[in-house]
């Protein structure tokens, strides 16, 4: 197949997704775009550009959706890595430029509460301070414990485990959307 035909097939695959699948992807992109400086639509668009340029065969809507979902996560991760590299190589810009109202340092993150590297787990833990059960779950998950181990160690039944997981997801989503959890 030549390039334009391939392009048409790949474009058609994007529109072949069901309404639910489109909504799921856009929601996921919207949630995890928090704190990146980009919007959900930007992540979605970047993921689609990857899809259009990919050599991966077009199979069906489920495979297209999985590809896009993976790309969205990867783009988000690359954005944070890029920001870290820029900061490491160029340092933090300290003086304001023409159209800025505030000095960049005024809005600069406090590295004592950075989400980078080892501090991430501690920060998540602190942000979930009002809910001890979520904290326990997070610590266990960070230690790579299996669901069965977690239930046994914390003496939770299935219902309790799922209820805490659900609360944790909601909290994490809120924190991500507010840009507090990167």
């Amino acid at each position, binding site marked *: 197949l030549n390039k334009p035909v391939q*392009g048409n097939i790949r*474009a058609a695959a*994007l*529109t072949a997704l069901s*309404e*639910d699948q*489109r*909504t*799921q*992807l*856009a*929601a*996921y*992109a*919207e*949630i*995890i775009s928090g704190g990146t400086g980009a919007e*959900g*639509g930007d992540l*979605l*668009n970047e993921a*689609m*550009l990857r*899809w*259009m340029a990919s050599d991966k065969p077009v199979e069906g809507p489920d495979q297209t*959706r999985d590809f896009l*979902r993976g790309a969205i*996560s990867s783009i*988000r991760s690359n954005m944070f890595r890029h920001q870290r590299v820029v900061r490491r190589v160029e340092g933090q810009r300290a003086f304001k430029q023409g159209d800025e109202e505030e000095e960049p340092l005024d809005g600069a993150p406090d590295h004592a509460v950075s989400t980078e*590297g*080892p*501090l*991430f*787990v*501690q920060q*998540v833990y602190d942000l979930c301070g009002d809910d001890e059960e979520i904290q326990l779950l*997070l610590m266990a*998950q*960070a*230690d*790579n414990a299996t669901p069965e181990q977690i239930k046994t160690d914390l003496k939770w039944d299935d219902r309790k485990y799922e209820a805490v*997981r659900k609360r*944790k*997801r*909601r909290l*994490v*989503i*809120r924190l*991500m*959307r507010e840009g507090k959890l990167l």
Partner: protein
Amino acid sequence: MSDDRSLHLKRQILEEIWEEIGSLHGKDLDDYLASIGLNRQDLLKQYSNAVSAAIAAPKRALFEDARRRLREKNTVESAKILAFDIAKKKQIVAAVRDHADSTREMTIAARNRKIEDEGDLDVFLEACLRLGVIDSDGNLKE
């Protein structure tokens, strides 16, 4: 705490978010979205805009590439013709005018255009080249 531990937790958090969103359909999905402050119609519009931009991007890239190649080609050809000495340029212009007078292929305004210096010569020759009246060696195209 190690970086691996952080990375593992970050991945797990993203996995769990997707696991939930990806498993919901119809009204369940709508209710879930509403609970986190999102709206299906807005998200569908976002998706549709992203598709339009993604489909347009390769076409725009092809168009820009073609335009760039054409510009490069024109620049190279113009540079060649503009490097001729004045006598040669005048000779080409004269040939173009003779040809235009006999074939009436150019407008009267173009045929009668005043050429007072080398700058005018260059402008006229570049226009003839762009219009395909002459080739980059100054030969008339039949």
